[in-house]
């Protein structure tokens, strides 16, 4: 992996009350590639992602982006370079799709022309019909909402895209279609992508670099093949088997 790290977790620990969500994790995320965080519910994968977005501060250790430690003072500058997509899209229900996508650009003083040009590019990229732009989120399908959410995240051309189970709420047909398009978009844009999912097949489809987590620690990192063929321990084997053959998880567990 030749590229330099875009995001680094340096001995990061985080507890919520008595529950320790992240245990002394060291992890570096390469730039211009897709890295997938995967693991069972409560393993801490979303917490890691939310730390990068500055929504959660670590109790111990540091999170660095391009070598700079995340601190409240630099968060605004960092967020200018982040795109963030969550499970239900997080679209503002009182704004139309167009307003959702262009809100921040407008507040930052973009000209109408610049916004229109960018919107056209994004429509093309996200394969969204123009007519959907003037609908409110409630009037869009689940798949369309995620496309709009992705457009909103990409509007200001961020260097880093954070996606927290972006397809988790979609039905299988739409999900598979969007998986395909997301991969095309990631490859086309060459951005640093950090994606959280609990679906191993999806993880393998998006990234060569998969980080499997368990109880706040990293269980194994590698390609889908290495996880399947060369599991580091019984947990990894169980996790892989559970996703491939329903019902075998408990037998395979250590």
């Amino acid at each position, binding site marked *: 992996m030749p590229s330099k790290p875009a995001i680094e977790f340096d001995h990061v620990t985080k507890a919520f009350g008595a529950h320790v969500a992240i245990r002394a994790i060291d992890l570096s995320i390469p730039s211009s590639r897709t890295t997938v965080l995967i693991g069972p519910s409560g393993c801490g994968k979303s917490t890691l992602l*939310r730390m990068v*977005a*500055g*929504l959660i501060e670590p109790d111990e250790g540091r999170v660095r982006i391009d070598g700079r430690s995340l601190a409240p003072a630099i968060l*605004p500058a960092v*967020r*200018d370079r*982040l795109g*963030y997509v*969550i*499970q*239900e899209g*997080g*679209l*503002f*229900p*009182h*704004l*139309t799709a167009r307003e959702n996508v262009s*809100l*921040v650009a407008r*507040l930052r003083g973009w000209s109408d022309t610049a916004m229109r040009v960018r919107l056209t590019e994004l429509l093309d990229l996200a394969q969204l019909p123009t007519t959907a732009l003037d609908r*409110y*989120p*409630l*009037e869009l399908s689940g798949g369309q909402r995620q496309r709009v959410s992705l457009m*909103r995240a990409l509007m200001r051309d961020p260097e880093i895209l*954070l996606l927290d189970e972006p397809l988790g709420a979609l039905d299988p047909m739409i999900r598979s279609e969007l998986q395909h398009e997301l991969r095309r978009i990631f490859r086309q844009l060459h951005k640093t992508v950090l994606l959280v999912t609990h679906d191993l097949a999806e993880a393998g489809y998006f990234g060569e670099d998969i980080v499997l987590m368990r109880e706040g620690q990293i269980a194994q990192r590698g390609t889908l093949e290495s996880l399947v063929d060369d599991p580091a321990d019984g947990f990894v084997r169980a996790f892989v088997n559970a996703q491939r053959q329903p019902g075998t998880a408990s037998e395979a567990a250590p």
Partner: protein
Amino acid sequence: MRSICALWVFASLALVNLAHADDPDVTIGSKKFTESVVLAEILSQLATEHGASVRRRSELGGTRVLWSALQRGAIDAYPEYTGTVATEILDTRIDDLRERLKAEGIAMSAPLGFNNTYVLGMREAQAEQLGVETISDLVEHPELRFGFSNEFMDREDGWPGLRRTYSLPQRDVRGMDHDLAYRGLAAGSIDVVDLYATDAEIEYYGLRRLRDDLDYFPRYDAVILYRVDLETRAPGVVTAFERLEDQVSAAEMTRLNAEAKIDKRPPAEIASEFLFHELGVQTEAPSESAWGRFWTNTWAHLVLVFVSLGMAILAAVPLGVLAARRERAGQWILGTVGIVQTIPALALLVFMIPLLGIGAAPAIAALFLYSLLPIVRNTYAGLHDIPRPLMESAVVLGLTPRERLRHVELPLAARSILAGVKTSAVINIGTATLGALIGTGGYGQPILTGIRLDDVSLIMQGAVPAAGLALVCQAAFEVAERRIVSRGLRPPD
């Protein structure tokens, strides 16, 4: 939305200014019972006749309100009774009144000529038959049934002292509403009631006044209380007041009361006739058509409701935002505006008088305070209920706190905030009727007069438009909701 707010504020300020446009030479107040209203009208017409411009503040809610207003200069004069000044206002002996009042900057006229003290009354026929002329005569008739007003039952200068002074043996003594006591007497279910000496009902029901032969009751000589500074500010008015000294006998006052209360003639006409017959003064009885009065009341009511509501929105929305932002401050804010809500409206109005006088200003201040809770609470709830993922999306998108408030939080909470404003508006429309007790006018005025005259149609003239206004207001908010709340927040039709 911003321009609507700006317009509202501007209009509110204009309205308040308008209300203070003309300052009269003298403002004359009255209590909310008929005799006081008639006397104040006589004073007003006489002062006008002496070249003064007069503002009337009729039917204010009780001794406390009038006294505070007089002290503060919100009114310059009003008719009062020596006994009331001594017991309720100053707590002193009648002989000291003039001195004590002077210390407060208040002057007292010579008595107007009648003593409106408590008297006991019986049906003329029964009194004749039993040979009862004085209160002492009642000692011989322990079987008589007494029905006294509730206030008289409790006051030290009422029943407890009366029974001791005369050693009255009667056991059947009941407290009841003053007006019901008359009916009980007429129906024969009670025999003796307490009366005011000039009650119109004395003649109407053919009652005998029993003489207070032991001089138990204090004197309630009618007088005029006025501010000492009136002597320099409007000497003509004081001269006018002097002309009334010793001009109104008890019989005369009883007749005037009967004309107002039983014949239901307008006090302005009664006052004008009295001045013509007694003093030979030709005065102008101010008259206003029913429609004119309706519009005046409507206007006054609208000013009260919407000025206070506008101010409340400006204060309550930021308070609600603060409450939603900071947990600790939030509990404090919600608690405080909640407590304000529990203060009885009349008490709050009276508290306001020393600060703001009488009229629209204290009423608006009180209504403002009452409007806070629904708006603060709904703003808080509206912001608090925004799903966390939405707020986090706004944060990570890079919106500043101010931008989040303006473009995300307030629009999302708009429906809830608007519902709070609507609640406040509707409550205000009802509560504003109480403003009449401190001289605001509005729909409370006909209600108050209607209660005084036992006139249901007059009460309706206030109650029906107030209810109508509440309905119109509800409808207006439905329209406003369509304009202000994003279509995206409404379920698709």
